[in-house]
């Protein structure tokens, strides 16, 4: 059973896996060490006793918990809005016929090609005109509905919501919104959970746009706070690393919960498009 071929195969996979995992291990090791440990020869590759020291210095240098809550708020708000608006539109495109449907959907797909960086400067100017610079509105509202999610939900709705069920609902006197809320949403749940994880992870990790928009430390998201920590405390690297670890953990935990389905859906999404 365990032939030479399969030995090579699993050896290759394991080496790849170790390379993939090592930076996480290294991150945890460094977070438990002092700065001079991090830059010592030979490097310390095993855990040290300084994790709580480092973490308490993170808490003293920046409002870490505040940045965490800001990020949680922005990511959750974005995710909830995306789920609602994308599923409503995706369901409508999949299951209803109305004049211009095909044409409108082509326009929607075409917008995915528009590069976001092109409108970086004008988007900022628009936010300034609205008086939204420095607010969470500028982070949440432009991202509260997107073409990818509508496309994703539409595909799923087409395959999984039987038209007979909608007809039966109509006969029972369900209005449009009741059909969406009571009939479609429960069926769409698997597609929604992927969209939720995808959106949440994306917003949580977003850096460039929050960096441009947020100018007040009390509003910083984790990524912006982390980058500014990294820029200011160049000598206390152990502390910066401990902050990095704290910022990374919530997302890894979330990912491990949803990973199996999430990875299959990522691949399915790529194959479909």
């Amino acid at each position, binding site marked *: 059973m365990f032939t030479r071929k399969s030995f090579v195969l699993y050896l*290759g*996979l394991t080496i*790849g896996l170790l390379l*993939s*995992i090592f*930076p*996480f291990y*290294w*991150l945890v090791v460094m977070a438990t060490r002092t700065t001079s440990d991090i*830059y*010592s*020869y030979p490097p310390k590759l095993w855990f040290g006793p300084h994790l709580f020291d480092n973490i308490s210095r993170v808490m003293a240098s920046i409002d870490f918990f505040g940045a965490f809550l800001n990020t949680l708020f922005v990511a959750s708000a974005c995710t909830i809005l995306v789920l609602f608006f994308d599923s*409503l539109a995706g369901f409508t*495109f999949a299951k*209803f016929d*109305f004049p211009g449907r095909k044409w*409108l959907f082509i*326009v*929607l797909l075409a*917008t995915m090609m*528009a*590069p976001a*960086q*092109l*409108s*970086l*400067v*004008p*988007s900022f*100017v*628009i936010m*300034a005109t609205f008086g939204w610079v420095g607010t969470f509105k500028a982070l949440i*509202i*432009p991202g509260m*509905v997107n073409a990818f999610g*509508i496309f994703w939900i539409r595909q799923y709705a087409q395959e999984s919501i039987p038209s007979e069920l909608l007809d039966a609902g109509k006969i029972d006197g369900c*209005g*449009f919104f009741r059909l*969406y809320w009571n009939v479609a949403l429960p069926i769409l749940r698997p597609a929604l959970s992927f969209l939720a994880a995808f959106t949440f992870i994306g917003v949580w*990790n977003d*850096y*460039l746009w929050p960096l*441009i928009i947020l100018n007040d430390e009390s509003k910083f998201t*984790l990524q912006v706070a*982390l980058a500014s920590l990294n820029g200011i405390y160049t000598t206390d*690297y152990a502390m910066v*690393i401990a902050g*990095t670890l704290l*910022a*990374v953990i919530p*997302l*890894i935990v979330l990912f*491990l919960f949803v990973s*199996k389905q999430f*990875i*299959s859906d*990522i*691949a399915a999404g790529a*194959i479909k*498009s």
Partner: protein
Amino acid sequence: MNRPVEPSPMPPHQAEATNSRNNRRLMSTIWKHRKEYLAISPFYILFAIFGLFPIGFSMFLSFQKWDGISEMSFNGLKNYQFMLTDPEFWRAVSNTLLIWIYSTIPMLFFALIIAFLLHASFMRFRTFFRIGYFLPNVTSLVAVAIVFGTVFSNNYGLLNYVLSLVGLESVEWLNKTWGIQLAISVMIIWRWVGYNAIIYLAGLQSIPSVLYEAAKIDGASGLQAFFRITIPCLRPIILFTVITSTIGGMQIFTEPQVLVGNDGGVSGGGLTIVLYLYREAFVNNYFGYGAAVGWGMFILIALFSILNWRMVQGNSSNH
């Protein structure tokens, strides 16, 4: 549309009447479907404000001289002229292209290998490996840059230690053009190999095994099957990954910005186009110029996407 062909032109007042009747009918069908339109409208409204309008507005801005505070003034093509003659801009273009090449080719190559290995492995292990390989992709770029900063650190970095073990001299990675570009490329490869491998794996799994069995019966070798069945079947997926990595590669920003700052490091080797745009627009407050650079970047992305498309299409006609 389904109006019968009229033998002679209608008198004007009659045509008007038909038109208005048609309009009324159209309006009433639209009114009947108002809930559907309402349901899909948020996307179009938001895209008009935050997608379409900025594109037109950035065209307008790119012809202006503006620091974001004082009065705007029209300065014609001067922004574009400056961009095309600024050596830093061309430096940023070449840095971006180099980083894209250093990262994309090994990334897709390793991803393909991992996908084949995963495809050949037992189902039970596959799930476990897939999660491990995908983990880097959900990690924030800021965190990745901070961690890799210690690996590529100029003095006493992890990599320099490894070099010292084999008797090589240490390298000031982050001060050298190629060093910083290598560091950025390694980060990109590390973060995206698993993602691409999983997409390739899904592609491999979607190839019907009947094809391989038929090839075997016809006496094709494993290598022949690989080049005649596997690669052609994977072509659209490879194209997808090449295009997404091109679009992503042209927009590299976080890695160099966190690793070496707004100027792209001592050597300037980490100054990518988006970092250049960010610095000019949001650090130096040249908003008009930033908009022009945005257009320059857009053209570059479009050119490269077309080039990629041609390359992959061209290959397919050779076979």
